[in-house]
């Protein structure tokens, strides 16, 4: 790891100012950032690391009225262990308890998990070996390279510079993103409140729509006693692995379904066609199967990742039948 300035931020304003000065990155639990720094993957090495953990009162779990509130620096382990979370948003506890590994869950935070950069192996290769579009370069190497873990729903098009558009087919593999999306969570930042479904985005060195210096502070999840939900994580190993695909489904008392998939698109993918198909209907074997097909509708996989389409169909069907 190279040398950098380390700032223990005392306040959100202070942290935000430091981040806006340029050449700075935010450190929450460090699960994502420290590996990136160690592997030297950035095109320009950050001059400053702004430690957010030193800001008080960003680590909490509380149910206030009809809202479950979680501080952005709350660790995944604390979320997984929390009876408040289990009672009000059980799939969040489940997803948090399966992310990463037991030791890393003790340090990694919900905020860091939501803001993590893509796991694409071209993006992550040591010493910035591939100057890819996601780093401001000209191309996405995965499009013609080994893309077995990449998007089946096309690439994200974004600007690498004013007027310069590029594509990236890396996926969002966070464990919590689909969960918060289907739970209708709102993400509070230092500047605004954003629906979870709108929080994720693709840009140069970012996987969110956060502005420069904008800091995620709180996750707000509506409490709904009539809501049922399920979470499925499909990974090759039982620990450590990021999910190849993960899936969250929620249904309210009137059979309105929310279905969101991770690992299949540059941002968490809402299976809108399946949701429409299921709206107001009771689940049957046939309907679940059709919903699986609908969830995969529009997929355009590469040869190496067409298995994800089969997984989408199967996992959606099985999880619906498991309600």
């Amino acid at each position: 790891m190279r040398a950098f300035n380390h700032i223990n931020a005392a306040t959100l304003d202070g942290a935000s100012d430091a981040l806006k000065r340029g050449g700075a990155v935010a450190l929450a639990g460090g699960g994502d950032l420290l590996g990136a720094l160690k592997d030297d993957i950035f095109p320009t090495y950050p001059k400053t690391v702004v430690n957010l953990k030193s800001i008080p009162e960003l680590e909490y779990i509380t149910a206030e009225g009809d809202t479950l509130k979680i501080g952005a620096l709350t660790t995944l382990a604390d979320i997984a262990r929390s009876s408040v979370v289990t009672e009000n948003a059980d799939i969040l506890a489940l997803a948090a308890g399966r992310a990463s590994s037991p030791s890393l869950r003790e340090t990694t935070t919900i905020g860091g998990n939501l803001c993590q950069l893509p796991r694409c192996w071209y993006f992550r290769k040591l010493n910035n070996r591939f100057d890819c579009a996601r780093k401001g370069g000209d191309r996405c190497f995965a499009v013609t390279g080994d893309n077995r873990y990449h998007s089946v729903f096309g690439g994200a098009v974004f600007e690498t510079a004013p007027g310069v558009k590029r594509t990236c087919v890396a996926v969002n593999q966070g464990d919590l993103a689909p969960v918060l999306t289907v739970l209708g969570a709102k993400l509070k930042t230092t500047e605004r409140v954003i629906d979870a479904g709108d929080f994720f985005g693709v840009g140069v060195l970012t996987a969110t729509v956060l502005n420069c210096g904008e800091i995620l502070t709180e996750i707000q999840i509506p409490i709904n006693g009539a809501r049922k939900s399920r979470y499925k994580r499909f990974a090759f190993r039982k620990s450590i692995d990021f999910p190849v695909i993960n899936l969250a489904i929620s249904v309210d008392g009137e059979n309105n379904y929310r279905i969101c998939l991770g690992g299949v698109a540059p941002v968490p993918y809402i299976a809108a066609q399946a949701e429409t198909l299921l709206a107001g209907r009771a689940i049957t074997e046939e309907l679940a199967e059709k919903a699986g097909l609908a969830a995969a509708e529009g997929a355009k996989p590469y040869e190496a990742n067409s298995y994800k389409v089969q997984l989408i169909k199967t996992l959606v069907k099985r999880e619906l039948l498991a309600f």
Partner: protein
Amino acid sequence: MPDYTGANGLRENFRVVGKPNIPGLTSYAMATGVAKFGADFVVPDMLFAKMLRSPYAHARVLSIDASDALAIPGVVDVVLWDDPIFKEIGQNPIGGKRPTYLMNEAHYEGVEVGAVVVAESEHLCEEGLRALKVEWEQLPFIIDLKQGLDPEFPKIRGPEWDESEGDYMPGLTTVDGLTILNLHYPDDPRKVGNVSWTNKIDGDMDAGWAAADFILEYDVNLHAVVSLLPNPPASVAWWFDSMYNGPEKNLHIEGAVQRRGAIATMYGLPDENVVQEGLFQGGKYCDWGLRMSQEITPLLSRRFDRPVRCCNTREETFDMCVNERLLHLKLGVTKDGLITAVEDNSIADHGAPASSEMGTIYDRDYDSYYTLKCENISQKYTIVDSNRGFMHTCGQFVPYNWDALTVGLAILGEKLGKDPVELAKLNLHGPDSQKDTRPVPSFEACLEEGKKLMDWEWHPAGTKRLADGRLHGTAFRYQMCPRHAMLSYFCKLEYRDGVVHFPTQGPIAGWFGTECFTMIIAEELGLEFDDISVDYDYRAKHTDEAGGSDGVTGQGWIVKECANLLKARILESAAKEAQKTTTGFGPFVMPKMPSPLMGYAAEDLEMMDGKVFVKSDPSKFVPFAQATSETITADYGGGSPKSAWTTGFGRVLDTMNTSWCEVAVDDETGEIEILKYGIVADPGKVIRRTSLESQIDQAVFFSMGCQLLEEYVLDPETGVRLNANMIDYRKPTTLDVPIVGKEILELRSGNAAYGASGISHSLANSHLLITAIYNATGIWIDPPATPDRVLKALGKC
């Protein structure tokens, strides 16, 4: 043969040998973190070194401008490839040819090339490396073996890498002052382009085909598998003046490096001028797996007259232990299932230069085709140079051909509707030769126990579903316990001040045999494990030097003999001393209490439970520690007895093993679950049960990983390794590895101590689970059977 010829070889009662959970001294060190590995050695005034690494799969460094690097305060020097320093080192005694220790040509992405930055800290080394202005010339590369077969493809290796310019001369040869282990046969075809060949034909292939009722053809493909070095490979070296060794400089080197004698050879020093005290290697396997960066610290230390440390990261040494190999098999078979001819046509990855030849050539003499009655065996190996990576131990973990045969038995079973177990029995030759039709006792015993362990019930492929809808598959595999113990061993023991001392260099090469040997010594002397003083000393002649666990047990035979020599001498001395009526000397002579052993000769005495006693009257004894006041030594050297039932090097049927598994295949997600994994192993005699069981667990870890998870991925466009880390390269975690059912048999037929043999790596396999998946689905899926590959094979995507 079984240990008939040695002392107590047929011993029936064991007090120490075979016991589980006896930790050794080094076990405590490792468990508590006291153990020092290469990266843990830090000495005062130490410099650091880091090597430039290639970002390209194949490239040449045309020039390096180091001026910016040298301008960084704390950067001491940048040593370039053409510096004469690199001529000051001898050839690495093990491994492939290596013209010089640092070159300006990189043969794979990530290899050390061109320059070494020496600085006051590791960070400054890295800063210096980033400041180098390197002019690269990118060169054609091969990462696809089939592309490498094209004779028109540009040669990726220069003539300096050809094994020999003249006739192939098997064995050690010297070319340009470099010692090379040449494993080609004299009449092997000469190299063309990037391809070389080696062929071996036994028996009469025409007759074999003529005797067959049909031909069975199949492919067994194995992908590259990465080794897992548990510690960062590092070395620290410094030179010093010794008050013992005269004017010559002495070298102290620690870390994951060659053992002391090899280091001495490389640097032209007498052994006694090399100090290597650390017991724990960590960053290498056996004598293999060393990188240039682990071996040149003495050179740099000599130049800068300060200690120098060089530590690699995991990604920098993410090397292969198994190379890619594509086997096409043809079996001639009678309608009853008897194999009459075997033709193995393999394409093997030769890897980057300096890779081991073990996985490309060596295995042809050393595989389970020779367990068959069939004597008509053709092996034609096509070996392709590549830029895929460095393979230091290929062939050592997975004997490819071993699974090629048992895969064939499974496919044959499906074709004939017969249990592969029965086909294995039909085809296995008898104990003495390939013409011997008698059953093999160890094999028969392993089969019977295995069937019981697994409730074995074979079914044709694709015919059984579990209650939850998943497909069910089974597989079986057998193997002989291999034999590497061809070395000559040495042991010295000393009885001093009432304590038995066992001086040893310890596990410097990565084997942990000391505990086994200590158990044997204790057993033979009637003592407890903790009674033996293990004196770790880098100058001791004895080391845990073996060649797999069968070597450990082979060496154990030497230790056993040595212990019995010591025992005889102690008893002789005890009997002699018991006759004395006085003690002291000169004017200090005093009367001595009569010894209970007085009047008895050595042959009347025995030792057990920490006592030396009279055989005919055990109530007459002296404590072992007071048996004699003399210092007594014994040493013994040589090899263990010859194996029984051997038909050639590495081919022995005295001790065998079987592996079994059941899997469930989810044909909608491609997920594989191991329902049962069973091992029945006959190591002849268990010496240290904990080691044996750990070795079995490790073998299953390897087997499961390479068949279900691990895959070495290279970018097709650049040849860059995409997953050289522990996140993207999926070694199994403890949650993934199945619980292994183990049955250990002791038929006492091995050629080492007490009829032991050691199982070595014979239980590590490349296709047992794959074969079970085939039995479940009826479709062959090359490893790793990850969900994506399974779904593709099943036509689901």
